Structure formats: C-alpha cells, structure tokens
C-alpha cells in the first residue's frame, strides 16, 4: 500500500454517469479502498436572497473540509466470506455502524450480518475527516463507501469469471455467492484470496442505481442489538486493560476550581484498596482496587481548593451579562399602520451528560501513551493528549470505543486527557470514571442563551422578522473550529470575517418562512463555562423561540397555526411533513380544557421535520405523585414526520426521531441546571430531570417520508428542534400563556441540594429494602 502516496491525481467523480475512481490494494486477500473525499455532489452558487443554509450548510462545510486530504477508507474481504470495514467515525447509539454495514451489503451483495464494521483508531492523516458531529456521518461517507464496495464486487466477479470459466456479464452475485450461467457457483470466501491484487491500482467503477437497491431503505435492526440486550456490548469501563485499576477524582466545590494542597494524603493512601493519590489540575485523583473504594477515598480526602472560574455567579448574574451583550434590533422602515410583536426567550444551562459517565482508560509510559475512550474527534484528542503528557503525537495511540451516548459530550476529550495526565503522574495505567455528581457539576453544559424576536405584520402579511440570539460562549475546540479556519476561502461570500460561532450559526440557522426582511444574528459572551453543543448546536433554542412567535403571528392575523405555516413556508418538503403530522395527528380535534395540541416544523441537515404533540396540563396530571420525580404537564401523544432525503435505515431513523422527541420534551418542560454561588446544584438524575418513563408520550408515531433524493441527509440531531418547539407551542395553547423561559419548571427547585464537600454522595446501603 506504500505506493498510494505517489498515485496520479484522478478525475473528480462524474455524477451524471455515476462513475467513480477507487483502488484495488495490493495484498494477499482482496482489499479495496476509496477516497473519503469523494463526498457530496457540488453545491450551488449563492444567490443573495435565500438564506445561506438552504444552499451551503454546516454539513457542506464538513464535507468540503474532507476534500483536500487524500483519505483512504478500506474494505477487506476475508477468507470466511465476510467483509470488514473500519469506520472513521464514532458509534454512540445513533446507528451508523448498522447503516454503514447496510451500504456495504448493498453494493457487495452480501447479507448485512456478514459485514463487520468497527471503529477506526485516531488516523491523523485524515485531518478534519474523523469528526463525528453535525449529523454528517452518512452524508459524507455514503459515496466513498459505496465506491469501495463496488470495486470489491467487481474484483470478485472478475475472479469468479476465471474460476467458473465464464465471463463477468453472465454472472450474478447474491448473498455472497457468485453463480455462472451453468448454475455452478463460487463463494466470496473462496474468492477472497483469488481476487486479491498483487499491486495497488486505480480502477473506475459505476455505482448501482437507486432503483436496484434491496438493502438500503429497508428497515434493519441494529447490528449490535444482540450484544446490547445480553450485556455483552463492551463500553470503555468494561475493558480489561492490564493494570488499569479504577480511578476517580475528588473535584473542587466550585466550577473549575483546582487543588492547592491535600491535607490527609497519607491517611487516604492507607485506606482499603487505595494504591495512589495524586493531585492533577482538575482535582485529586485516587486509584484503588474497586470503584467503590475510590468513592470512599474521594469522600475522605481533605483538600484545600483554589477558587473556580465563576465564583459568586448565579443564573441571574449570567443572564444579566447576556442581556447586556445582545445585539440591538434594528427594524427597517415599515408602514405606519404595521403592528409590532416582540418577545424575549431565555434558555437555561443544560447538562449534556450521557448515561455512561465521562470515562477513559490510559496507559502512559515514558516513551509511549495508549488511551481508550469514546471519542468523536480522536485526532484532536491525540494532539491534546500528546501535549498534556509531553510526547510526540506519533507516540500516542488513541483507540475509539463505542460510547454509551454522546449528545455532543464525546466531541470533547476531557476524560481522555485527564486520564492520561493521571496515568503519567501515577506512573501506572488507570481506568478513569467520573462520578455521576461530577457530570452536571463540572462537566460540559449546553450554554444559557436568550433569543429576542421582533416581527411586524400588516394586512395579514409578515413584513419583517428579526432575531437576536445571545449565548454563553459555545466551545468548538473539538475540531470544528479548526475545520472552519482551514476552509474560510470556501465559505459563501461574507462569512470569512465572522468568528467560529457566528459562522456556525449562519451555516445552520434557517428560518423556513417567507417573512419579508429576515435577519438572524448571534452574539456570544462569557467564556468561563465548560460548554459544548447538546444534540444540535443552536437550533432547538432558536427554533423554539421562532415557532412560539409563529403561533403568535398566526393568532394576531386570526389564522390557524397549521394553515398559517402552510401559507408562509417556503419549501415544499417542509410543507409536506407538516401536512403529514396534521393529518396523522388529527390536527384540530377537540380536547378538554387544560389539554391542547401544538405543532412545529424545522428544516436543517438537508431535511425537514414536523412534530405534532398533545399535552395534558390539567392539575390532576401536573401534580401526579412520583417519589423524587418531577411530573408536571405530560405530553400524551407525539407524531413526528421526517424527510431525511435518501434513507438508509428507516428503523434507525425512527429511533433517532424518538430520541429527539424525548430530548424535546425534557428541554421544554423539565431539564436544566441551576447555577448558584459559583456552582451548579444538580448532582443526580433525580436532580437533573431528563425525560423519564412517567413523562414519555403514551402514544408515539414516526412517519418517514418517501424521498426521491439520491443523497442521504442527517438524522442524529434532526428530531430535537421541532419537538421542543411543538411541546412549547402546545403548552402555550393549553395554558393560554406563552412560556418565555425554558424549561418551564426552572423556577421550582424540586430536590434537596447535595453537599459540595465531599463532592460526591455516599453510595446507599439500603438497596435490599427497595426491591420489586
């Protein structure tokens, strides 16, 4: 494979003839490759009027970022007749290993279960093209993977023709077996070595037309489903790396504090099971035989702390800073008789923690470091770990492990870098786990934000729609930032001068309505928090504010919310999903007082979603008793329709939409962090109220729209924005009051705050009195 470097430049894909160039790799068994930068079809030039994301969005930027680097992805045909592929992306539950196996199975004529998709370790040569985010995986890998698989199939056919004494044109391939005109057949297992190429060579291939698909577009269960339900699916904390004993960190009482001194190190070192106690910049690390003993040691530590980054600050002080940083609205001249509607919405801090806590295994030696973790940006992790432990990048091996959820969390390398530092300091391998309490209190949060909107209306027409979104600074230090700075020249005119955050805002936000003069601007301030983007960057907040305003405008002009939207929506795909949920969800059916329907749309990731929900805000429901649980209004029914372009796996897409609805319910009604006196109060899943079974819709329906598109769209995040918006709109209609702060229950602190010293709670001992 060494001669790949010097291969001649090849012609770009000719999309009309759908002919692509890839490689047969020299080797003992059949191995093929394609350039990951084959990417997307070209985008249109940017005319002045439509909003930017309609033409060139964040996904295009990510796809473009891949173009300049030669990034080979390889498929190997094994001698047992299976195919193997290392996906340079990360599986966190979104189903990309399944959809990737389906794409390969389709082009290769292999059953899906004979395709093994694993996650590639950090591959620095891929540069920006090993980032899992922006719901971009399938969009950017679809074509290159198909090209590689098609080349493999051609090579297998070529070898089979010789074996069967026939010609390729007379052969058929099915389920991993190639059959000749006489009925004689040969399997991929038999052909794996015979089809191997002695040298690496560029070959061209034509892809199967969409009309011939038999796997893509059919519902498939996840490839890892059996492992998941039997407990055999392996996560980072399940790895058995020799010597990597359980390790936890005693963290500061205020956000981002640091240890000054340890008062009782010797005493803690003498505790049962404890092997090491060392201070690092984020706290004091302890390593012990079991995590239980780590918990005890963390609780026993007496540490003197330096102050944190937001001492004394609270929700109110941060909100005041946001208000002061708002870019003023500047309504263009409008006719005298026009009515003006204005509202400001506030979105509180939210924790993006997954159920699997932050964790990593690290083994740092004098001359080499190895790290295992769930990482969506492993190349950035590799660089940061190298810098943290003072090793050259090539001396750091970063293994990507399937993650127990991400929601933007695993774009960051916090646990991997911390584990590496601890391992280096202790001089032994460590298996680092964050306590649950550490996650909301010191982990990544989705920034607090405000959205001010002013619209003007005259004679049933919306003349202007202005939005000013102001947010606590969002951390894009996971590679998306670098991606943008390296691709400034590719961005549509005028974007090159914006900062990262503003660029991303402009590339993702799209008001889908014809509302006259539309301006949407972002300003970010306050960098002292550990932020990230929780399952979508700005869209859920921005869309929620917009859709509530759209309902207000509909009411002002005396129109039904669905009819009003249909009248003003620009895009037929968005209108179609809206019509679909209105029909399936029986929009307008009569409901008792205190209950209502709500509807909302969203357009992003080259797709469209619409959600219709029914909410029950009657006191008997709101106050239903659940021990230590937040109840409140219940979304009793949710109907979501999604147009995601060419759908690889409708079953997986439906699952992503279901997750999006669960997130939307939490964002609208129950989940937030409370900042008081320089720290977040939440420390448990019974403090931070993500949707639970008692708040899940009793009736959930997802409609995957048929699409004629040749191009897949994004899925992982697409369901959230319309969901939170629909729940907010339903709540407004059920209660007669438009909510302006989210989640709506943020005012009630519905739990007893756990102590900050020690930073983590003791594990209970009364588990046997809570059996059922």
């Amino acid at each position, binding site marked *: 494979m060494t001669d790949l470097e010097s291969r001649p430049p090849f012609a770009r894909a000719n999309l009309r003839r759908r002919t692509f160039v890839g490689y047969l790799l020299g080797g003992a068994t059949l191995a093929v490759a394609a350039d990951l930068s084959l990417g997307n079809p070209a985008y249109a030039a940017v005319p002045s009027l439509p909003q930017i994301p309609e033409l060139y969005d964040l996904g295009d930027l990510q796809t473009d970022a891949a173009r300049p680097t030669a990034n080979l992805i390889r498929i190997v045909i094994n001698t047992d007749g299976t195919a193997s592929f290392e996906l340079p992306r990360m599986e*966190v*539950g979104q*189903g990309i290993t399944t959809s990737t196996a389906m794409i390969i199975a389709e082009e290769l004529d292999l059953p899906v279960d004979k395709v093994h998709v694993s996650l590639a370790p950090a591959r620095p040569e891929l540069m920006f093209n090993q980032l899992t985010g922006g719901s971009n995986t399938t969009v950017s890998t679809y074509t290159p993977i198909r090209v590689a698989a098609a080349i493999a199939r051609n090579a297998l056919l070529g070898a089979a023709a010789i074996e069967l004494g026939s010609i390729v044109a007379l052969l058929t391939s099915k389920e991993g077996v190639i059959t000749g005109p006489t009925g004689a057949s040969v399997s991929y297992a038999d052909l794996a070595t015979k089809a191997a190429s002695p040298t690496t060579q560029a070959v061209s291939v034509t892809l199967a037309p969409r009309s011939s698909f038999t796997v893509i577009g059919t519902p498939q269960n*996840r490839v*890892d*489903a059996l492992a*998941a*339900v*039997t*407990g*055999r*699916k392996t*996560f980072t*904390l*399940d790895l058995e790396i020799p010597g990597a004993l*359980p390790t936890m960190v005693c963290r500061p009482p205020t956000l981002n504090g640091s240890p000054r001194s340890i008062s009782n190190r010797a005493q803690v070192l003498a505790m*049962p*099971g404890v092997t090491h106690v060392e201070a690092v910049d984020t706290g004091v690390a302890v390593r012990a*035989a*079991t*995590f*239980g*003993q780590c*918990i005890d040691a963390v609780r026993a530590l007496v540490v003197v702390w330096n102050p944190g980054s937001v001492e004394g600050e609270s929700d109110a002080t941060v909100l005041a800073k946001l208000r002061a940083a708002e870019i003023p609205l500047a309504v263009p001249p409008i006719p005298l008789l026009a009515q003006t509607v204005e509202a400001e919405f506030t979105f509180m801090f939210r924790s993006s923690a*997954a*159920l*699997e*806590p932050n964790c990593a295994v690290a083994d740092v030696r004098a001359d080499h470091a190895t790290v295992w973790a769930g990482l969506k940006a492993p190349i950035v992790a590799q660089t940061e770990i190298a810098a943290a432990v003072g090793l050259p990048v090539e001396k750091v091996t970063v293994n990507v492990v*399937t993650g*127990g*959820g*991400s*929601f933007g969390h695993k774009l960051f390398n916090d646990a991997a870098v911390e584990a590496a530092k601890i391992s280096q300091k202790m001089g032994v391998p460590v298996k680092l786990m964050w306590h*649950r309490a550490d996650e909301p209190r010191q982990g990544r949060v989705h920034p607090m934000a405000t959205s001010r909107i002013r619209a003007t209306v005259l004679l049933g027409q919306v003349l202007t729609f202005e939005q000013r979104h102001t947010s606590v600074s969002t951390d894009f230090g996971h590679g998306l930032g670098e991606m943008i700075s390296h691709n400034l020249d590719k961005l549509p005119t005028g974007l090159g001068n914006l900062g990262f955050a503003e660029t991303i805002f402009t590339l993702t936000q799209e008001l889908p309505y014809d509302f006259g003069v539309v301006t949407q601007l972002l300003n970010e301030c306050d960098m002292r928090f550990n932020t990230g983007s929780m399952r979508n960057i700005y869209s859920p907040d921005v869309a929620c504010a917009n859709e509530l305003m759209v309902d207000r405008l509909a009411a002002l002009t005396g129109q039904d919310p669905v009819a009003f939207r249909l009248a003003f929506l620009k895009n037929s795909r968005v209108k179609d999903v809206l019509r679909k949920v209105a029909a399936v969800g029986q929009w307008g059916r009569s409901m008792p007082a205190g209950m209502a329907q709500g509807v909302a749309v969203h357009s992003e990731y080259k797709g469209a979603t619409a959600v219709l929900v029914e909410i029950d805000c009657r006191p008997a429901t709101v106050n239903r008793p*659940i021990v230590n649980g937040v109840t409140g209004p219940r979304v009793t029914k949710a109907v979501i329709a999604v147009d995601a372009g060419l759908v690889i796996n409708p079953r997986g897409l439906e*699952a992503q939409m*279901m*997750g*999006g*609805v*669960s*997130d939307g319910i939490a964002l609208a009604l129950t989940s937030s962090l409370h900042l008081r006196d320089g720290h977040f109060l939440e420390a448990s*899943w019974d403090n931070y109220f993500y*949707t*639970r*079974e*008692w708040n*899940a819709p*009793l009736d*959930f329906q997802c409609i995957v729209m048929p699409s004629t598109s040749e191009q897949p769209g994004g899925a992982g995040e697409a369901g959230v924005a319309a969901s939170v918006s629909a729940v907010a709109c339903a709540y407004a209609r059920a209660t007669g009051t438009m909510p302006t702060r989210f989640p709506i229950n943020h005012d009630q602190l519905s739990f007893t705050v756990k102590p900050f010293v020690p930073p*983590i*709670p003791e*594990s*209970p*001992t*009364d*588990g*046997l009195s*809570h*059996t059922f």
Partner: protein
Amino acid sequence: MGQHTFILNGSTVTVNVDDDVRLLWVLRDVLGITGPKYGCGINVCKACTSHINGKAFNPCSVQVKDIGPTDQVTTIEGLPATVGAELHPMQEAWLENDVAQCGYCQPGQIMAAVAKVNQVHAAGRELTDADLDEIRNICRCGTYSRIRTAIRAGAEAM
C-alpha cells in the same frame, strides 16, 4: 477483608473483599461481570438493575456483607438461564422492537422490565400504563416508547 459467598447466575462464588464494598463493584471490578452498568452509584439511574432471589434490586446500593450464601443474584448475563433458553422472552421482545440505541441502559431496563411484569402477574393483573410509568430506569437516548412496546410484548410471552 472478608470472605463472601453467594450464588451468582446459578453458580456459587466466593470473593475476598471488604464487607462494605457495594455489590456492583464486586460484580464488575472483582468478578468481571460487566452487564450491570454504573450510571450513578446512588440507586437513581437503575443502570445496574439485577435480580436478587427473583426480584429487581440495585447492587450499587447493597453492601456485599448483606448478601448471604443462599442468595441468588442474577445479572443480565444469567437471565436467559432462568427460563432455560438462549434468550429470555423479554430480550427477544427487545430485539424484535430494536429498542437499544447506545445500549448502555438496556441491561438494566430489561432486568427491571422482567421484575415489573412478574410483580404485576403475581398480583393477577394485566400490565397498565401506570405500571410502566413506575419504571425509573433512565434512558438518556430516549428509547422510552420502544421500551413500553417491548415490555408489553415481552409480558405476553412470559
């Protein structure tokens, strides 16, 4: 250091570990049984849900000394054997409905679901929405709707 004996997934095991270590860590860190997951350590998330003598419990909140030699602890790994099959009907229902996303919560969800259905059946009732609302297990991927469907299907087959 104490010696503790109990029955784990049908076999008697003996471990040398301090009395107060919670059973979850005995299972995961000492015995290498990693089906039960850690999600909180304070009996809230329910990711570690397993069975003791056929009832759901959370090993993160039980000291190993409180488990006796005749206590039967069943983790997700031992669930199929309780019905003498490759897979428990609840696991089959989970596959049928393609419930898992990241999968981290799912061993605990399945163990809780089996116990909930047993509890309802023992009371001679049919499963209701109110029963399902009592399940506290977090799924941060938000698979709740499929979980409800799967539990109903699993209950039919149990």
